[in-house]
């Protein structure tokens, strides 16, 4: 066995007392643990504890995530293979954005709920879930930028800027606060806001803020004007334009030299804030690092540094900068968190490492399963087989779907996931679907429909048999029959007909006439059933005094030999009153056929008849 990557988490079972032994049994998604006596005397405990790994599927808000993403997943599988790759890329990007918007919607709803709770009740679970979703969306967004959209040098930086801006929402909040105050330029957070805007490359907003300060200090007007010019002239790469990357690079270098000149000239020496901004614009690392609080994360630092030092960064160069930025930003003492190593792996374009780290860090397969599936559709995963058969995508989808199947309600979603695992999905589904509890007929019908659509005939038979037995036990013969008709289960239909015939023998009349009289072609399912229906028809004809027809029917019943042995006597005794009927006795055909019957009876029965008479 390989070495473990992380220490296993320890879960305390609160009700189990110290010093007791615990026994356990694995379930599909959880463990059952119980106290057990192991050589020690004492009283046992009658509790069984269920330890669940994944609490998320039981959260009502997160359920929406599972349902909506299932919808997107099913849509993704139907994208046609023959589309040109450019069209496919835009489709994949929009699907990725769909997934992300679903995550965001859930996150917002969780946040709303967390806010409405009483402060003392602010459960850490909700807060934890929100932060996990935030991290997930951050990672997904980065994967979309780097892997799915796969922007080349130039647009790459723009996408990374968008990425950072999206995940640093507190700048706008602070800005709002500052702008709504009486004198924004004198607010204590004012310069923080301006610097944050600059760090994120949002120069328009920065300039608008600076105007407010400029009006307050008319003496320094020229300085502000200079800063404004510098900010407005910073070139941004336009992906749709005609400018090539090299041309942009040249332009940018010109601008960079101009800013550097201003710095050397001490143009902003008198105003410390503007001086800082100028240093940022020129890409001075130390100044950037002084604003760690405003940057708050090493990846923000990375993107800002790239913006002001290497705007034409190529995707393959990213990981150098990422590694160095992370080292510079984080203290030597602090341990990198899982999120940091995942993001670093993404910058290194090591998709497998990203997936592996996410699998370990998260307690639910949702994220890795869907992301891997999308990346697989983009043909980004090399198909290397795992030791345990099937490829990575299928493995993750199977794990995720198996987890869903343990949920009392979400099992229906899992079916579609199994359908899209070509190698093992069918087998997994066959094993799991039989464990779905069938409380009502409606649920059984839905499960049956799933099985029938996938030609799982064994499961169909077994489910129908379960439902039919249950109906039979409750004396619902019609229901039992309708289940055996569905499964085309002749043996069970025979069993039910036997019950009917036993009832008749016991009581002398038929029960459930509405069923027997109205079966139609379903009666051909089993010989015994046909016999039952025909026998009842015989009785009806007899009651309506249609004796010749009744006789003919009885004859065919006897000659067809579909009657059970126990009934042969009854049939013959039924024939006797018919022989007394005039119209029947005059029918030679019947007479001569009677002799035929006698000839065909086995000797034993013939002798018993004679002895009785």
């Amino acid at each position, binding site marked *: 066995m390989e070495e473990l990557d992380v220490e296993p988490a320890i879960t305390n079972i609160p009700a189990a007392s110290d010093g007791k032994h615990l026994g356990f049994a694995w379930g599909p998604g959880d463990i059952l643990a119980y106290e057990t006596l192991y050589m020690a005397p004492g009283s046992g405990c009658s509790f069984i504890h269920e330890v669940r790994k994944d609490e998320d599927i039981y959260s*009502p*808000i997160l*359920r*929406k995530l599972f*349902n*909506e993403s*299932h*919808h997107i997943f*099913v*849509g993704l599988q139907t994208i046609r293979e023959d589309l040109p790759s450019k069209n496919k890329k835009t489709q994949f990007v929009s699907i990725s954005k769909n997934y992300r918007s679903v995550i965001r919607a859930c996150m917002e709803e969780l946040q709303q709920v967390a806010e409405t709770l009483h402060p003392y009740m602010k459960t850490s679970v909700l807060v934890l879930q929100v932060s996990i979703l935030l991290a997930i969306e951050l990672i997904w967004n980065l994967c979309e930028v780097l892997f799915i959209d796969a922007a080349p040098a130039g647009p790459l930086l723009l996408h990374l800027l968008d990425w950072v801006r999206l995940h640093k929402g507190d700048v706008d909040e602070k800005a709002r606060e500052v702008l709504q105050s009486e004198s924004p330029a004198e607010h204590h957070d004012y310069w923080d806001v301006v610097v944050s805007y600059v760090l994120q490359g949002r120069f328009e907003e920065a300039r608008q803020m600076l105007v407010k300060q400029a009006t307050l200090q008319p003496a320094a007007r020229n300085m502000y004007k200079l800063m404004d010019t510098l900010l407005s002239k910073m070139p941004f790469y336009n992906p749709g334009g005609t400018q090539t990357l090299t041309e942009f690079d040249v332009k940018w270098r010109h601008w960079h030299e101009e800013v550097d000149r201003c710095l050397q000239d001490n143009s902003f020496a008198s105003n410390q804030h503007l001086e800082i901004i100028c240093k940022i614009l020129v890409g001075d690392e130390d100044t950037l690092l002084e604003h760690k609080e405003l940057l708050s994360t090493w990846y923000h630092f990375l993107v800002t540094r790239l913006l002001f030092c290497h705007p034409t960064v190529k995707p393959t160069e990213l990981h150098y900068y990422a590694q160095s930025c992370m080292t510079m930003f984080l203290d030597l003492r602090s341990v990198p968190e899982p999120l940091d190593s995942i993001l670093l792996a993404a910058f290194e374009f090591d998709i497998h490492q990203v997936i592996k780290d996410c699998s370990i860090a998260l307690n639910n397969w949702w994220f890795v399963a869907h992301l891997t599936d999308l990346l697989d559709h983009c043909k980004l995963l090399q198909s290397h087989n795992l030791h345990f058969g099937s490829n990575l995508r299928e493995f993750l989808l199977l794990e995720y779907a198996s987890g869903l199947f343990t949920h*009392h*309600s979400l099992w*229906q*979603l899992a079916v579609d996931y199994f359908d899209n695992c070509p190698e093992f999905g069918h087998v997994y589904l066959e094993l799991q679907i039989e464990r779905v509890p069938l*409380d*009502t*007929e*409606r*649920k059984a*019908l*839905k499960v049956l*429909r799933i099985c029938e*659509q996938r030609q799982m005939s064994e499961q169909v038979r077994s489910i129908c048999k379960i439902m039919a037995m249950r109906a039979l036990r*409750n*004396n*619902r*013969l*019609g*229901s039992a*029959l*309708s289940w055996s*008709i569905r499964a085309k289960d002749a043996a069970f239909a025979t069993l039910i007909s036997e019950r009917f015939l036993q009832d008749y023998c016991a009581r002398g009349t038929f*029960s*459930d006439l*509405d*069923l027997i009289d*109205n*079966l*139609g*072609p*379903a009666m051909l399912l089993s010989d015994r059933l046909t016999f039952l229906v025909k026998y009842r028809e015989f009785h009806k004809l007899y009651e309506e005094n249609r004796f010749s027809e009744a006789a003919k029917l009885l004859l065919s019943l006897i000659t067809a030999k579909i009657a059970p042995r126990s009934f042969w006597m009854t049939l013959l005794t039924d024939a006797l009153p018919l022989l007394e009927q005039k119209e029947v006795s005059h029918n030679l055909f019947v007479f001569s056929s009677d002799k035929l019957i006698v000839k065909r009876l086995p000797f034993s029965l013939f002798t018993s008849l004679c002895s009785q008479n």
Partner: protein
Amino acid sequence: MESVNAKYVSQKISKTRWRPVSHSSLQQPDIFATGSWDNEDNKISFWSIGNHGSSGMDEGFEGDPQLLCEHKHDGDVLDLQFLDQDRIVTTSSTGAVTIFRHHQNSQTISVSQRWPRVHRYPCDNAPCTGVVCSSPEIVTVGEDGKIIVFRADQEGVIRVIENADSSTIHAVTYLRTTEILTVNSIGQLKLWDLRQQSNSPSQILSLSGDRLPLHCVDRHPNQQHIVATGGQDGMLCVWDVRQGSTPFSLMEAHSAEMWEVHFHPTNPDHLFTCSEDGSLLHWETSTHSDMPSFLQGGRNNSMISRSAMAPAGGNQSLISTWLSGDSSKGRLETTHMLPSQTLSVNSLDVLGQCLVCGTDGEAIFVNRQVPV
């Protein structure tokens, strides 16, 4: 399809019904109730789509349905009907029938009356599969093959028809004020006259050919002899209960069980069906002739209309286009109403121009601009 949006509600919806609007007002419906199933804790909920204003609102997306209130429900909600403006009757998989009252002022729900375990086997509970009500009378049917009649303010049951059916009864509806129709799992449509004391149906109709289970039934709002049913194979059958014992017309509708069929209450040329295959179909018939309907033959005075006022533009010809026998003869258009494939659509309800449906994908769809 801008006016259809999915709202994800974290529960699989088994039934959804609009709250009835009074005939005199021209308002569109604004409140609907839903019941969930297959949860450990099932719920009934009331939702509002905020249609209080006049019809001069701007087009398109007007906001999701908002949850007004909800209440725990013991067992799956197998059927749900509005008894009146404030009360709903629900039937449960535990065999219980419950009346809930919705208090509009405080937006709370309370249990108004409950009949636990009315549908049962000798040793077990039987799910109660269908309910229909005409205040104050309530009729329920169940997997135990019983038909039970209650009155809304009386304890106990009024009447039980034991062993009404040897198989499961899936749905029930009123044919006339004293007659009901039931459908069962061996493909039979049975007519019961509640004035009679006998325990057998007054008429039995069934499909020729395979006796597949029928799951839903609905009666034409104006012409009470026309009944539509849907069953396991997704075929839509239209029957004329006066004539013959087999359906008048059969139309292939869905590729899996049809769970509900509804005639539009005021515009019965329109019919809606929903199915396990995830689709919701809107059927629209039209007559051949351009002659106004009142010139097409005498009115039969023995037809009693249940609504208080005659519908304004409804088709009143005696030979209804639903009974044209062959769907290619009359003009019959079907349109899918949901934007894309979903999991099973379990329930739908239509009133005025609004349609609501609930799915196994835990989503509710509301369409406010149904073209009727």
